[in-house]
């Protein structure tokens, strides 16, 4: 996993609440059994019309090079646990998603892939939505801040997750390291059979 700390870039406004993972990565493409190259399917039903032509009204189609930051509405990533939703957003080039709130599973999936999700109050999100398209936002994970030319906000993040993201470590490395502890715990629970 890649470490993440400071990001400075323009951003994409996705002014929609309750963007569920079925919209982010339609079920049709779940047949793909790899993680790579999924960006072209992100928001597929919104990005392309029936004939597979890009729909120019949709905001993601208005960028030649995708900024690293996405600013979305509340309860982003609700619904299905499909991690493809995170993989495809990363593949599009996003490193940070800012929204008033995120669905729990999506948030975990994001952290496990080094995608930083930041919860800011609705008013801050709305103020980002209101800014001109070439504005710049700066994010520092170490300082837990998001700032623009006119304001600075801090965000909360779990200390352990922050550490993992800053170092690019994942939970699996940790768990593999304590394999013997897990084994003795299993034994101590009275021979494995007594475990539920």
């Amino acid at each position: 996993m890649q470490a993440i700390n400071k990001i400075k870039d323009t951003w994409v406004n996705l002014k929609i609440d309750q963007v569920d993972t079925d919209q982010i990565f339609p079920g049709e493409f779940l047949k793909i059994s790899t993680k790579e190259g999924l960006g072209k399917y992100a928001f597929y039903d919104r990005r392309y019309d029936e004939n597979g032509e890009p729909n120019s009204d949709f905001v993601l189609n208005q960028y030649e090079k995708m900024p690293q930051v996405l600013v979305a509405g509340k309860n982003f990533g609700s619904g299905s646990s499909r991690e493809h939703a995170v993989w495809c957003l990363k593949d599009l080039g996003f490193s940070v998603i800012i929204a008033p709130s995120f669905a729990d599973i999506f948030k975990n999936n994001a952290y496990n892939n080094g995608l930083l999700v930041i919860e800011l109050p609705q008013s801050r999100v709305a103020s980002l939505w209101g800014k001109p398209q070439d504005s710049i936002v700066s994010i520092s994970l170490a300082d837990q801040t998001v700032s623009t030319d006119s304001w600075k906000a801090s965000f909360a993040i779990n200390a352990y997750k922050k550490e993992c993201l800053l170092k690019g470590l994942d939970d699996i490395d940790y768990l593999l390291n304590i394999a013997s502890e897990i084994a003795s715990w299993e034994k101590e629970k009275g021979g494995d059979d007594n475990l539920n």
Partner: protein
Amino acid sequence: MADTLYDKIWNQHLVKTIPEGPGVLYIDQHFIHEVSSPQAFRSLEERGQRVRRPDRTLAVADHNVPTWNQHLPIKEEMSRKQVALLEENCKKHGVMLYGLGHPLQGIVHVVGPETGITQPGMTIVCGDSHTSTHGAFGTIAFGIGTSEVEMVLASQCMMQYKPKQMRIRLDGKLPKGCTSKDVILFLLAKLTASGGTGHFIEYAGEAIQNMSMEERMTICNMSIELGARGGLIAPDETTFAYMKGRQFAPKGLAWDEKLRGWQTLFSDAEAQFDLEYQFDISNLSPRITFGTNPGQGIAIDQPIPKADQLNNETDAEQHQQALDYMDLRAGMSLSDFPLDEIFIGSCTNARIEDLRQVAQIWKGRKVDPNLRINLVPGSSQVAAQAEEEGLAAIFSAAGVQMRQAGCSACLGMNEDKVRKGAYCLSTSNRNFEGRQGPGARTFLASPMTAAASAITGKITDPRDWVRD
């Protein structure tokens, strides 16, 4: 100290706590399926690891399978490859697979409970959000992403923060023509699709105690639609009676011993919850959704709310977007609204009890021949039982051939998609844009509402159709 049911199970499975970090939670049972596991297996192999506890892992093929002619090779190439990859991974790692053709194959959340693999007090995960279903047995069960699937394959553990806890008490008696699906759709309309975010929900109260296991599973299943991590219900005599004699349930002395443990699984009287709600369901009406998230629902005999009847402006905006997608208007009634398709299936409502309700309404009647109806049992066992009980014969006399088990039209990834622009009344759990296929428009409702509507071809209040 007074503990909640969740606390008790959590404490029994906590391997260790990382200072100022998450807990390491031991997982008793890991279910996997073809869609959310291939990348996990690959990555596991890239790390040079093997599945740590194949005996605590069970695989099914359900999401991406056809529901006709399951004995033939899968036609669609990508689907065929994905299912084959699951077989290959299971073989390599010694994991039991209920694949196509296996008598126990079915939707993972139907298979676990009906085989007795799901047992009270367990921790259960699966790379599928509706893992919350298993909570009906008094388990901590929740959906995980693929990285987490890999984590559990590698270590049989998960890094978890303890969620906040909510309790919803449901009192009163479920009225005729209403099911537990109507209860959860009602809760969704009350609390919204994000009302449970960050929480695990315990359902309690007289109405829950009076529910069958099937009914309880429907409620816990859709906890995820409330935004919750999961839902659970304290096991009781109904739970134990359901479990007894099931294939993988403990037998003899082992049963007695397990039972003693299970009987301690309840929230202590003094236990504290972060949030509590109480509702009386005695006057509930059958429910239906009109929008594109499961919280956007109404009683079947009520008009679609107008924007000014909603809580705030963002809700109003979302409301309008949903109505535009559904091509419906605020203020209109959905009663008698013409349908194109009906889907009776999914891990929410395709258990034997659901099929019995449908049969009860269809018996001696014909469905509207203009409708496309997908009737899909939740598992091969459910299908076999439906044959045995004569339900399948009732279905075919009514004009519908029961399909074979799988997720089917619940999600638009296998062959059974809802057509673009079509209105489909579904017993499944999600009405998201495009969920059942690109451009598909979904109304969520109970199996009884689906059964009555199948006869008339229009959205129909089942209360007039239920026989005493």
